[in-house]
């Protein structure tokens, strides 16, 4: 499984992304003493990786190592026959503060159209928050939402689908809604990656991966 989350900070910068996409969820976060204090956040409003389009990322923001706030926004994004959206915005904020580390990351897009209307949504919003205070480390996705989502003509209720909801897309592959990958020991470390729409493109003949489309990806990591 691949991920769109990377250390790229600039918005709308396509190409070479996959190699940088660290599988945060798959990363084995070292024990707290080894990592000491750390805060990380990364947001990507949209990313497309296909053979035809290559890798393109829109409105990506990465939290500086020392904390603070980064943001990126793009008014409109379009990848022919694959993806279109407006109002793409990413914000990540966080800080290491003595006895507490906290980070919040959001990624959002509006008027989303994937694969020529196979998937449409009025708004996509991913929100990941993590904190660690030395005795407790937690993450949550509260606030994440999908509005006016329609997949292959089927409408879905506004809100946040159950984590990791999979919907088959015959002849195309499948989509995972509210994909969540979490980690950490719950005491000193916690991390969460939320991808509100993650389309896995599959070659119908070979069954091999043919690319992916991610809308609304937010990652937060807190280690103390």
């Amino acid at each position, binding site marked *: 499984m691949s991920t769109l989350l990377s250390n790229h900070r600039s918005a709308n910068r396509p190409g070479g992304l996959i190699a940088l996409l660290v599988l945060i969820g798959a990363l084995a976060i070292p024990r707290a003493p080894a990592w000491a204090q750390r805060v990380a956040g990364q947001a990507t409003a949209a990313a497309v990786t296909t053979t035809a389009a290559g890798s393109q990322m829109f409105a990506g923001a990465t939290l500086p190592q020392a904390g603070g706030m980064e943001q990126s926004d793009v008014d409109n994004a379009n990848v022919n026959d694959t993806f279109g959206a407006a109002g793409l915005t990413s914000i990540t904020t966080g800080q290491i503060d003595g006895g507490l580390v*906290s980070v919040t990351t959001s990624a959002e897009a509006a008027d989303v159209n994937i694969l020529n209307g196979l998937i449409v949504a009025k708004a996509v919003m991913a929100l990941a928050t993590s904190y660690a205070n030395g005795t407790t480390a937690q993450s949550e996705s509260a606030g994440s939402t999908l509005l006016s989502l329609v997949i292959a003509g089927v409408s879905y209720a506004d809100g946040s689908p159950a984590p990791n909801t999979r919907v088959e897309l015959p002849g195309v592959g499948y989509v995972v809604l509210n994909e969540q990958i979490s980690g950490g020991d719950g005491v000193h470390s916690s991390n969460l990656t939320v991808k509100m729409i993650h389309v896995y493109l599959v070659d119908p003949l070979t069954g091999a991966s043919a690319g992916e489309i991610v809308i609304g990806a937010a990652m937060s990591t807190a280690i103390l």
Partner: protein
Amino acid sequence: MWKRRTLARVPVLVGAALFSVHCSDAAGPDRPVSRPLAATTAAGGGGIQLDQWNGTFGHQPNPQLIIKGFNNTNPHVGDAIIATFFWFGTPGGATGNIIESVTDVLTTNPYTPVGNKYNLVEFVSNGSISMATYVATDVQGFPDAGTDGSQILAVKADLKVPVADGGVLLSAWIGVAGVSTQALGQHHSASGLGTPYLLTGPTTADPGAIAVNAGALAYGVSLVAPPAGFNGPAGWTSIAAQSDPFMKGDGEFDGQFTVSSSGGSVDPQWSWFFPAPGSWLASVLALNAAPTTGDLTVTTSTSGENVPTNGYTVTLDGNTSQTIPTSGQITFTQLQPGNHQVELSGLPANCQVTSANPVTVTVVAGETATTTFTVRCSAPPPPPPPAPPPNDFVTGGGKLGGGREFATFGLEASPADGKFEWVQHCPDGPNPASALCASGQFKFHGTVTPGSYAQASGGPNCRTWAGTGTSKQTGAHNFTVRQACDGGEPGRGVDYVEVTMDDYQNSGFLSGGNVQLHGRKS
């Protein structure tokens, strides 16, 4: 017969009375003698003065009417008139006051009603002789001091039953209070039997003592039957005495007055030298002087919050002050008529006079002028919050609101600088009915104004700051984070944000994300 006597006399002196008594027709021209000297003396003080008087005593042409005019000279307009009516026996067997009404007229033909109101003050009778005294104040409606015989003011009593004999003593007074309730003081009457002076000495007719105010007029009148010589009350001044000894041989009256300079008690006593057993009546009343000063009542009415408990200060003409409750009254008394300046002061900083201040109030003698100050108090502004520590700063981000209209944000603020990102989501477009989406979706990028960062009113974990920024959708705006409160982790439901961007305002607890106060947290 009109008499001015202060010495004891014997009945033989009364015989001369016939001359005047006979001329008692209606409002007739039988004005007897000039004003007593004492009246002139009283006038010197500028207080109450006897202006005019007149009287009639004896047979009345109309047995159901006793009337007398102030010929030859009317009183002054504004005078008080005392009218004491006398009659004898029990006409028709009637007892009590047989006077139906007392009114005044002008001596036109026919009479022209004037309309002043005469109030009964005293009625006294012993069954054989009766006497009723009426008072009108501030009389109006006649030529002032007029001498035209057809425009003379006359006072009349309409009787319930006919009388064979009767009379009236009229006296008009300058300087009496114009309002009857203020003018009339104490009054009293008494009656008794007279014994021949040759046997017992003179009989004392004493109506009783009354209290009088300073400057007040004390009026006394005594009626006897049969006519007798008398000594009037010591120190009093005679108004008139009149008898009717020869027509009916029935009686004599005497009216006296005094003006008290300092107030106190008066008790007029007549020493009647009855030639034979008889009866006496006596009445005394006091009329207060017209006030020469007025009062001023100041009222305060305070509303609002944090109303002071110590009241305010009212200053009159810049030199006389009184403390007044915040909502209450005080009165300045005995003020000279004219304009007076009244000022309210002593208000704490959170209270303001919302009416005119100072004000000029006109005081009228005998009246109470009023003025009201309205005051509005407000809660004093809270003390400025303490400055946050130098290493204090806030980071945070997340979501505010839910449903289809929500905001996402990111913030980083410190005393020195910071950034502020705000996105208002309106997926259904502009909605005039929505407070948040009236102008539609927008993104805002702001920077924090150095020095604007401070502790907010929400508590020690709340910060406020301000700055400027731009939006592609709505243009440049000032923004203020009124509150960014770190209520704990995670921030959902406990962290609070309140933001204004010119007309846009949004606030609430986070529905996702976190606000983190760094460097100081309680």
